């Protein structure tokens, strides 16, 4: 019996007993879909997370959870680590071992077009060079109040150069707290397929203005006495009646200023980019000795590896449960198959009478079974691929 004839008869039989065939195919597809999807998603997740970690040599931040620090430095939209100060960035710069890139992520934007707010990342120009982020539309950061947005955000919020976006206060009930800042969207980043596509970038100083550390307001020298609490030759104390500017414009930009020493200004983390292996080792040594009580320096690859070990354990559990469900499905399919053969006893007997060997009958039934298996596998693989495309970002957002 040729395979062509076996396939022909199998197709006819499957289409005739289509209810049974569809049930078997769906059972197989569902049983296979879960482990394949988990494997695909975890592989994709593993590749993404490792690639970004490998591309980030060192992250320096306040002492505390090394996982929170590393993930925040890599992905921004995660649990905030304890804040460190700009002094850490300046220290790294002064050692000459690495190029420091401060990152300050404390605020989010307000929702736009029914899209929830996204993290505002305050950083320096070096970050864009470090991550090789190009501008697809508009231009990069140039003055206070400018922001460039990731391509995914631009698409979802329908924003582009020339639009405005507001920062969201951390506590809406704190009347004495910082005001929302209206930022100018000056550019949209080219797609990088990384978390950078989902955040709003501002200069670190703009981030501090959002934080309330820097501000701009009307000139107080000639202000009405009604808004002043105290005025001496050297010092002016204004009342709350003097409102800070909530938008940075060419007219008021010169009035923006910071109080205090920059070394004390908060940042979330510093990405350190050592020029070579020796400097990397030396910098790590500094944070294990003289700065061990003040800050910590983590290697993102190590932290991510620790995290992946947890993921692997979850993966093992999923595999185990999938194995159990596959065993149950296999037993059920065996039952269905044996009952089906019993129901088709007359047909099998007829074929035997006509001259069909037991081997040929086995080939016919096996062909049907293999076709159902192939269809089940095809559906499972296609479903897993679709899930990996659709759900990959969702899975990442669940984890971070």
């Amino acid at each position: 019996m040729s395979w062509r004839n076996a396939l022909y008869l199998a197709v006819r039989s499957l289409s005739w007993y289509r209810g049974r065939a569809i049930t078997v195919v769906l059972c197989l597809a569902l049983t296979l879909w879960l482990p394949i999807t988990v494997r695909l998603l975890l592989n994709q997740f593993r590749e993404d997370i490792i690639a970004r970690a490998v591309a980030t040599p060192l992250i320096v931040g306040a002492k505390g959870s090394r996982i929170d620090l590393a993930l925040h430095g890599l992905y921004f939209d995660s649990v905030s680590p304890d804040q460190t100060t700009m002094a850490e960035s300046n220290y790294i710069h002064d050692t000459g071992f690495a190029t420091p890139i401060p990152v300050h992520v404390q605020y989010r934007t307000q929702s736009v077009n029914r899209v929830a707010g996204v993290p505002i990342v305050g950083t320096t120009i070096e970050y864009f060079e470090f991550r090789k982020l190009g501008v697809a539309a508009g231009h990069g950061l140039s003055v206070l109040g400018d922001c460039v947005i990731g391509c995914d955000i631009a698409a979802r919020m329908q924003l582009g150069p020339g639009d405005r976006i507001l920062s969201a206060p951390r506590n809406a009930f704190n009347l004495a707290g910082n005001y929302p800042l209206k930022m100018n969207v000056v550019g949209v980043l080219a797609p990088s397929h990384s978390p950078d596509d989902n955040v709003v970038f501002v200069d670190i100083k703009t981030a501090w203005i959002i934080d309330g550390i820097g501000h701009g307001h009307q000139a107080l020298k000639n202000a009405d006495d009604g808004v002043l609490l105290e005025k001496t030759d050297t010092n002016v104390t204004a009342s709350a009646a003097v409102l800070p500017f909530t938008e940075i414009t060419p007219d008021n930009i010169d009035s923006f200023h910071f109080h205090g020493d920059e070394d004390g200004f908060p940042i979330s983390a510093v990405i350190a980019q050592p020029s070579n292996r020796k400097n990397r080792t030396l910098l790590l040594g500094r944070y294990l000795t003289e700065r061990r009580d003040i800050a910590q320096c983590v290697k993102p690859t190590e932290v991510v590896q620790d995290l992946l070990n947890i993921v692997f354990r979850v993966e093992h559990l999923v595999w185990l449960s999938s194995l159990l469900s596959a065993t149950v499905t296999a037993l059920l399919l065996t039952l269905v198959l044996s009952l089906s053969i019993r129901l088709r006893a007359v047909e099998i007997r007829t074929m035997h009478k006509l001259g069909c060997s037991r081997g040929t009958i086995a080939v016919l039934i096996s062909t049907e079974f293999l076709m159902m298996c192939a269809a089940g596998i095809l559906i499972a693989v296609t479903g897993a691929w679709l899930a990996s495309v659709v759900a990959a970002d969702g899975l990442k957002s669940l984890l971070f």
Partner: protein
Amino acid sequence: MIEIQQLTFTYPHGSFHLHISELAVESASVSAVVGPSGSGKTTLLHLVSGILPIALGKILIDQTDLSTLTDAERRRFRLQQVGLVFQDFELIDYLSVIDNVLLPCRIGDAVALDDATQRRAEKLLEQSGLVDHIRKPVTQLSQGEKQRVAICRALLPKPAILLADEPTGNLDPTTSGQILDLMLSSARENNTTVMMVTHDHSLLNRFDHVIDFERFLTSSEPAPAARGTPE
């Protein structure tokens, strides 16, 4: 020619016993096999067709001794030389009319499934008045139409022997007559030897010979040859 010599058959788990000392059926003859239920008529057809193996005795078909053939050789012989028609048609529900007729070509390599075979199948169905039903599922056919499809399936490989086991048993008298006409005319046209089991004695005048199993049951003498036993 079909020759049976000292044939003895018993089923492994049963008291049934068939013994035929001698029986001969001429080539291209048309014989009816009659006898009470349980006398071994169907068993004889299964032995002649090679469905059942021969333990004792001989069945010679045109000098081929079936008792010396292996299972595979008997299957090949059956596909090439024997056409089978059953009382309950035994068609495959999930195949169309034409596919049921072509089934012997698909389940074995004894008969090639080529254009000529396809045309022959269509011609047989045309002769049987089923030309309008070629692509229909067999489940949509009447009982008489189903039996006609079964006859076409049996005749497709141009068999030397056509064995029919009560092919009209489930049919009304009119349809029975039509089915018999079709089967016998096709067989005579192709010089096919026919052995047909029947309980309908009104049909016996249509046959050249009658093999009466009553004689095997009541007599310990060798069975008479079908040859020269006109009813």
